[in-house]
C-alpha cells in the first residue's frame, strides 16, 4: 500500500516533497516545537538554522517519524501522513543523514549501504547485484567512494557520502542532513555542498540543519530560522545577510569577530596580548620576555589502534598567547592533547609545563601543576552525566581544599562553588543539584569551561571548546578564553573549526599527519592557504 502510493507520487512530480504544518512537540514541560511550519519543494535546499535547543532536531525527528507531534501534520509528497516510525518515512522516500553516522565500521561500503534492504537471491544476499546498484547510484550522483573498502578505513567525508548513498539507495526523494558539515574540513565542506547541489539538480529536496551561517548563505535556497521552538524568520540568501541571520537566531546582535584588532584599547591585559600577537614578527624583542609555559619537544604518541598519531612534534606556547592548532580531524590532534594531559601514554619526547617536567605525568599531576583542560568529548571525558552540576563543577578538583578535608567531601563548599560557577559562567540550570545530563550542550560546555577556569591555571588546553553549541555560548566561551589569555594564561587551542582557530589565535600551527607542518600568522594567512596546508600541501607550495 505504501509502495503503491509512493510510486504514484513519484511519477507525478509532487508540489511539496516534505512539509510540517503547525507542528507542536512537548517533552514534559519543555515545548521543543511550538506551531512550526516548514515546506520543502523539489530541487531545493531548505536550511534549518538555529541555536542548539532551538528545536531543529526535534522538528526533523518529527518529520522523519522518530517523534510523534502533539499537534500539527506531516506532509510527504503532497499527502498527509501519520508516521509511526522512521520506517514509514523511509518507505515514503525520506532519508536522513545523521550527525553521528549510523554505519557498521568493519563492514564494506556496499554492505553498509544495502544493510536492511539487501537484494536477495535464493535467500542469500546477492552481493554482485548490490555492488552493481551501489556503483550505479554513485556514478549517477557523483558520490565517489570505494565500494569494497571497510567503512572504518574511510575518511569522515567519504563515510558521509556512504550515508548519503544509503538514503539514495532507498529511493529517497528527500534528504535530511543533520549538521552534516560539523566534522568536515573546509574543502570537504565545499565538496559536500557541491554534492548536495548536484542532488537537487535531479529533483531531490534537501533539508539541511546547521548553525553555520556561511554555509547557509552559500548553499541554501530557502532559510527557516528557529528560536526557542518557534519559527522566527523565513527568508532566502538573497534577502538577508549573515549578521541579520545571527541576530534572528540569537535574538540580539552578536559579535563573532575577534578582538584582535581592538585589544590595544582595552587596558592592562592588552599589553600582554599585543606582545604575544606579534610574537611571530618580533620574537626576540617583546614576546621573548614572556616565559614559555608549554614546551613540547619530539613528542610521539600512538592512536588507539597502535599507529603512530603524533610524530616527533615540537611546539611551544608562551604565557599570554593563544596558539591555535588547525587541522583536519584525525591528524593526531586528539592524541596530542591526550598525551599532554596525561590521558595517553607518550612513546617518546618531552613535555614541560611551567618549567616542570610533565613527560609521562598522570592526569592528576597535570591538574596539580596548573593546567586546565577542556576536553574534546564532553560526554565522554568532560562530565559525568548522572552527576549533579555541583559534583561536576569539582570533577577533577574534588580532592583539593576547600572541597575536601581529611578524605571527606564538604558538600556545602562544593555547592557554593557550583553556584559561583553557574552564576559567573551563565550556566542555565534550575539548581546545582540537577543532573548534568539535563543541561543543553552549550550549558554543559559552559559548566566545563567554568570548572576549568575557576582554579589557578598557567596553561589552558582547549580541545574543540565550542563544538556543537550555539552562537550565544560560543561568543561567551570565546570571550572567556580571550580574557584568560589577556590575564597571562598560555592557551593551546585545538579546533576542527578553522573559523574558530582564526578568530582566537595569535599564532596558528597547522597539523598534518601528526606533525606541525607550518606555523602561520592568522592576520596574513588566508583560509585557502591554511586549508591547503591542512590537506597536506607542502608549505612551500602554498601562497606561491
Amino acid at each position: 500500500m505504501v509502495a503503491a502510493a509512493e510510486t504514484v507520487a513519484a511519477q507525478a512530480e509532487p508540489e511539496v516533497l516534505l512539509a510540517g504544518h503547525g507542528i507542536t512537540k512537548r517533552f514534559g514541560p519543555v515545548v521543543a516545537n511550538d506551531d512550526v511550519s516548514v515546506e520543502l519543494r523539489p530541487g531545493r535546499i531548505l536550511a534549518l538554522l538555529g541555536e542548539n535547543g532551538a528545536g531543529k532536531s526535534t522538528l526533523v525527528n518529527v518529520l522523519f517519524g522518530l517523534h510523534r507531534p502533539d499537534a500539527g501534520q506531516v506532509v510527504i509528497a503532497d499527502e498527509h501522513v501519520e508516521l509511526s516510525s522512521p520506517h514509514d518515512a523511509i518507505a515514503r522516500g525520506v532519508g536522513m543523514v545523521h550527525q553521528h553516522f549510523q554505519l557498521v565500521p568493519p563492514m564494506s561500503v556496499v554492505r553498509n549501504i544495502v544493510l536492511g534492504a539487501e537484494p536477495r537471491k535464493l535467500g542469500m544476499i546477492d552481493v554482485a547485484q548490490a555492488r552493481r546498484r551501489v556503483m550505479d547510484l554513485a556514478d549517477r550522483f557523483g558520490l565517489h567512494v570505494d565500494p569494497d573498502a571497510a567503512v572504518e578505513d574511510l575518511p569522515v567525508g567519504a563515510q558521509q557520502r556512504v550515508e548519503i548513498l544509503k538514503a539514495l539507495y532507498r529511493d529517497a526523494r528527500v534528504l535530511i542532513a543533520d549538521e552534516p558539515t560539523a566534522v568536515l574540513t573546509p574543502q570537504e565542506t565545499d565538496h559536500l555542498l557541491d554534492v548536495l547541489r548536484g542532488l537537487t539538480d535531479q529533483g531531490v529536496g534537501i533539508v539541511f540543519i546547521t548553525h553555520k551561517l556561511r554555509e547557509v548563505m552559500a548553499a541554501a535556497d530557502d532559510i527557516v530560522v528557529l528560536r526557542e521552538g518557534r519559527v522566527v524568520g523565513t527568508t532566502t540568501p538573497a534577502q538577508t545577510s549573515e549578521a541579520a541571520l545571527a541576530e534572528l537566531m540569537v535574538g540580539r546582535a552578536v559579535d563573532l569577530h575577534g578582538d584582535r584588532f581592538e585589544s590595544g584599547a582595552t587596558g592592562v591585559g592588552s599589553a600582554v596580548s599585543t606582545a604575544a600577537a606579534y610574537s611571530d614578527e618580533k620574537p626576540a624583542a617583546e614576546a621573548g620576555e614572556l616565559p614559555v609555559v608549554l614546551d613540547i619537544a619530539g613528542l610521539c604518541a600512538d592512536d588507539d589502534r597502535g599507529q603512530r598519531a603524533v610524530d616527533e612534534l615540537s611546539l611551544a606556547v608562551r604565557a599570554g598567547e593563544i596558539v591555535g592548532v588547525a587541522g583536519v580531524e584525525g591528524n593526531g590532534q586528539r592524541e596530542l592533547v591526550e598525551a599532554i594531559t596525561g590521558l595517553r601514554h607518550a612513546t617518546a619526547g618531552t613535555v614541560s609545563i611551567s618549567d616542570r617536567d610533565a613527560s609521562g605525568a598522570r592526569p592528576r599531576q597535570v591538574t596539580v601543576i596548573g593546567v586546565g583542560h577542556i576536553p574534546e568529548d564532553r560526554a565522554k571525558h568532560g562530565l559525568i552525566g548522572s552527576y549533579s552540576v555541583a559534583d561536576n563543577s569539582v570533577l577533577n578538583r574534588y580532592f583539593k581544599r576547600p572541597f575536601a578535608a581529611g578524605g571527606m567531601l564538604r558538600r556545602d563548599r562544593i555547592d557554593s562553588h557550583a553556584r559561583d560557577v553557574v552564576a559567573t559562567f551563565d550556566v542555565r540550570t534550575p539548581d546545582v543539584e540537577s543532573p548534568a545530563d539535563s543541561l543543553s550542550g552549550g550549558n554543559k560546555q559552559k559548566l566545563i569551561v567554568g570548572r576549568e577556569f575557576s582554579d589557578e591555571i598557567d596553561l589552558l588546553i582547549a580541545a574543540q571548546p565550542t563544538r556543537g553549541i550555539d552562537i550565544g555560548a560560543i561568543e561567551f566561551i570565546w570571550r572567556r578564553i580571550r580574557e584568560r589569555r589577556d590575564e597571562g594564561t598560555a592557551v593551546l587551542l585545538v579546533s576542527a573549526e578553522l573559523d574558530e582557530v582564526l578568530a582566537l589565535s595569535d599564532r596558528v600551527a597547522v597539523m598534518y599527519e601528526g606533525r606541525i607542518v607550518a606555523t602561520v600568522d592568522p592576520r596574513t594567512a588566508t583560509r585557502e592557504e591554511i586549508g591547503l596546508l591542512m590537506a597536506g600541501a607542502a608549505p612551500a607550495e602554498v601562497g606561491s
Partner: protein
Amino acid sequence: MSVPAGPQAPAETDAAGRAGSTDDSRRTLTRTVLRAAAVPLASVALGLVLGAVLIAVQGHSVLSAYSALVLGGAGDADALLRTLQKATPLVFGGLAVAFAFKAGLFNIGGQGQLLVGAAFAAGVGFGLEGVPLVVHLPLALLVGAAAGAVWGAIAGVLKATSGAHEVIVTIMLNFVAGNLTDWLAANPWQDRSGSNIIARTPLVEPSAEIPTWGWLPAGFVLAVLAAVACWFVLERTTYGFEVRSVGANRHAAHYAGISVGWIMASTMAVAGLLAGLGGAIESLGVDGRFEAGVNVGLGFEGITIALLARTNPIAVIPAGLLVGLMEAGAAKMQFESGVAPEIIDVIQALILLFVAAPLIVRWLLRLRDTDDRRLTLGAGWGR
C-alpha cells in the same frame, strides 16, 4: 544496568539531612524515596499476588498460608531472631554486590567470598584457645573479612591489570572457594572428636561466639552498621566520589585524575570484605562452626537483595529483612497450611524478575516514570 542507579541518587543526597532542612525539602525527600521504591514495592506485591494464585491453585488457603508465613517470621521473639539471623548474611551479600556495582562492577563472587570468610573465621574461632573474647572475636571476624577481601581483590586486580572480566573471574573463584573450603573442612580442619565423619570444623570457642541479645543477634547490628558505613563512604568521602565516578563514567574518572585500576581493585576488595564478614558471622554467630555445603547459595542471594534494593546500601537492609522473613517463616507456613516451602523460592524469583524488568511493572501498574528522567530524555533531542 544503569536503571537502578538513576532515581536513587537524589534520594541519597537528600537523605543526608542537609543543614536547615525544611518541611518542604523533607516532603521532596519522601517523594523521591517513594518514587525510587515504587518499582521494588510493586514487584514485591506482584510476586506475592502471583504466589497467592499458585497457593490457591494447589487448593490451599492463601490467607492461612501467608499469615503463617508472617507469624513464622515475626510472630514472636524466636521467629524474629530467625528472621534477623537469616537477614544478616543477605544484607552483607547484598552490600557486596551493591558496593561493587557503584564502581560499575558486577560482583557474582559473593558466594566464594562468603565461603572463605566463613571458613577462615571458623578456623580462627576454634583454633585459638584461651584468648579473651575482646581479642578472639574481633580477630576471627577480621580474618574472615580479610579472607573475603583477598578473594574479591583477586578479581579486581585482574580486571584492572589485564581487563579480565570480573563476572567470569568471580564465577570461577566461586568454584575455587567452594572446593578449597570443602577440603579445609574435610581434611586439616575437620572435627576429629568422637565418630564425626562430616566435613566440618569443630565448634568455635565460646570466646569467638557472636552474642545474641534476646531476639536481636549482634551480627544483624553489624550488618546494619555496615550498610550505613557503605552509604557514608559512597556519599560522603572522596573515595566514594572516586568509586561512583568510575562506575558512572570511567573515561571522565580517568580525566578527573582518578586511578581507575586502583578503584576497581580496591572496590572489589571492599565488596569481598563485606561478603566475607557475612560468612564469618554465619560461622561465629549462627552455625557455631564451618560446615561444607551449609552455606551454598547464600552468597548468590546477595544479587537478589542488591537488585531489590536498586543497589542503594540503605535499602539493602529492608530488602534483606523481607527475604529473611520469607525464609524464616517458610517452615511454619508448610507446617500449618501444607504449602510446600519451595513456593518461597518461586515468589522470590518472581520478585526479582519484576525488579529486573521495571518496564513491565510500570506498564502493569500504570506507574508514571520519574519526571526528571523524562525531562532528560526530552532534552536529549534537539537541546
